[in-house]
């Protein structure tokens, strides 16, 4: 049956649009609105123009938080995407059993807060597994205050992130590798390609698209990271693991500075969207040039 009037499609769209408007658009518009105010969340609100944005640009903590998140993203591209790719390569080469794949994937199914609590025990300098194992092996010199030393804290969190998400990317790459036509692999083998050469020069180039998507997910997901940082270090020690989201939450929920926190949120969103757009444009250019 064809729609009988112009309004009919809109009637069907209305429920979805209403939910989207109330759950996504309205909070976004309100956040932008709040970012021009000084407000503690429930008292009187005063308009301050662009003051919150000026403050954010000059805020050393906010600027440093972006440096930290970029380092974290760089580390996770290696520990999540890189390790995920390596694992996918291994399980396709060696035809690893389903249990192995499930074991690698299990951390992805755990809530990140649970993961963070588990790893806080692993990293605990006084009672933790790592320092305990090092002591048991007579390697006390290698013991560290893993989450309390600015030199190791960010890397320690990146390792946890890698432990969780490497399995996720492994599954993506495994699915992509399985799509490679068997005759191409056979042809390479007949030409004498080793497993490594086959992986490096045939399989990886053929799943370039999946790798690109994985990197984009890793980058945008990195900017949105929060749980691990919040539970493991809460931005410490001495601000060494402060990222925009933890700083934002502290600003809004602890200091009660909703206006400034909203400005931070708007800037963070703009940067994430900007990175996503630049990445998409770069990919389009790269595809056109091929």
């Amino acid at each position: 049956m064809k729609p009988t009037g112009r309004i009919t499609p809109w009637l069907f769209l209305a429920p979805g649009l209403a939910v989207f408007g109330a759950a996504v658009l309205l909070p976004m518009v309100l956040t932008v609105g709040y970012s021009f105010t000084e407000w503690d969340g429930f008292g009187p609100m005063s308009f301050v123009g662009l003051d919150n944005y000026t403050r954010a640009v000059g805020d050393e903590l906010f600027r440093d938080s972006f440096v930290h998140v970029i380092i974290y993203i760089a580390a996770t591209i290696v520990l999540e995407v890189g390790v995920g790719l390596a694992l996918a390569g291994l399980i396709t080469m060696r035809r690893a059993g389903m249990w192995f794949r499930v074991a690698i994937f299990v951390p992805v199914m755990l809530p990140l807060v649970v993961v963070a609590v588990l790893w806080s025990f692993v990293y605990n300098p006084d009672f933790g597994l790592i320092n305990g194992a090092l002591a048991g092996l007579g390697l006390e010199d290698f013991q560290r205050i893993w989450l309390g030393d600015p030199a190791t804290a960010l890397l320690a969190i990146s390792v946890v992130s890698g432990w969780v998400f490497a399995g996720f990317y492994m599954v993506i790459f495994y699915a992509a590798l399985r799509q490679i036509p068997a005759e191409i692999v056979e042809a390479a083998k007949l030409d004498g390609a080793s497993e490594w050469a086959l992986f490096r020069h045939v399989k990886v180039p053929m799943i370039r698209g999946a790798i690109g998507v994985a990197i984009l997910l890793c980058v945008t997901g990195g900017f949105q990271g929060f749980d691990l940082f919040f539970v493991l270090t809460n931005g410490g020690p001495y601000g060494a693991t402060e990222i925009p989201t933890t700083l934002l939450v502290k600003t809004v929920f602890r200091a009660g500075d909703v206006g400034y926190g909203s400005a931070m949120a708007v800037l963070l969103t703009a940067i994430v969207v900007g990175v996503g757009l630049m990445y998409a444009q770069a990919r389009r250019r790269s595809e056109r040039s091929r």
Partner: protein
Amino acid sequence: MRRGQRTLIAVSAALALGVVSSASGALAQDTTLRVAMGSPGEAGIRVWDAVAAQFEEMHPGVDVEMNYQDDDLYQTIGLPNLLSGRNAPDVYFEWTGDRMAQRYADGYGADLTEAVTSGPLAGIYNEGVFPFASVDGKVVLVPHTADVTNVIWYNTAILDEHGITPPATWEELLVACDTLDAAGVVPIGSGNKDLWAAGNWLSHIASRVVGEDVYAATLSGEGVFSTPEWEEAFGYIEELAAHNCVNESVNAVDDNAGAQLFFQGKAAMHPIGSWLVSWAIDENPDLEFDFVNLPAMPEGSAGDQDSVIAVETGHMVNPNSENIDLAIEFLALVNSPENVLAFINDAELAPLAESASAADVDARSARLNDLFKTGAAVVLPPDTGYDVEMALQLYEAEAAVLGGQATPAEALATLDERLGR
């Protein structure tokens, strides 16, 4: 009129009548009194629920709705959300100091002066508890308990074993640190990941050195932190680090992990508040422990060396409530001698109501309460007594010095810069 139409009208009339009668019944039936607080723990919840049940029995038609939130959630976004929501609480827990004053300024604190002088709350308290609960001479909070937020708890067996007497002076504390450190025992266990745990303690040290007036003025936004007085105060934090007084992991673990070092006998001392008593008894019933107030700082320090860092807590009444009188009566019941006794015996709290002094409180809790009541200077913790953002930055600066990441001068300069002073 057709038969069908008559039937429709009759059904509609019956439905309408039903709706009207049920609505009017609802109006006549229940009044809801909403009470909000951070979770007082399982034992505390049982006492509060019992008080609510008593109140409902005394006031037929009144339903008391208790809302216990996670402590951190309540302290941050929980309470503001409740207050600005449609079903705002009639009674809510609050800390005295800047938070309480802010609530009052924002229009969420009723003037309770009359209620405590000649109303249902009269005669419950000693007059000494009201200055903390007042804004501009008006009582705006009904006191319940006082949390001494920091003393030095010590493991009596460990100190005895190493021939150490509980430190009464700063010099004695440093000697105790050296002795214990040499013996392979962590002198002071603390978990400062969230910054407030050691932050309160270190701020108390600072107040003893710079003096209570300078402490209050600087934390209130007057002047800068980069002064010789504050640098001297932070120098004592540096001394703690130099003498290995505190566990290396201090800034990496949370307050719970810090307390576990003490509960498990790995640390000889633990600087934290009055709530440790029931916590320690739960975690390690065999632990023998006691406390001393912060040791006196060296001669020349400007503050009262008997000062105590503490915060009075209690309940405010929402002036926008339609049940203000009921709310006040509820708080009178909460602080009645019978319920004060229940809070002491069942929740191991030490309420401020006068009737508590006759009860059999844990000796350590009673002495803690005495610390608060003796008349020595009371220093407010930065995070409840003053602006929270300032408090967080102050704690960060103290943690940086304690962790050896910054000198006192550097930490104070960074603090001023971040506060825009």
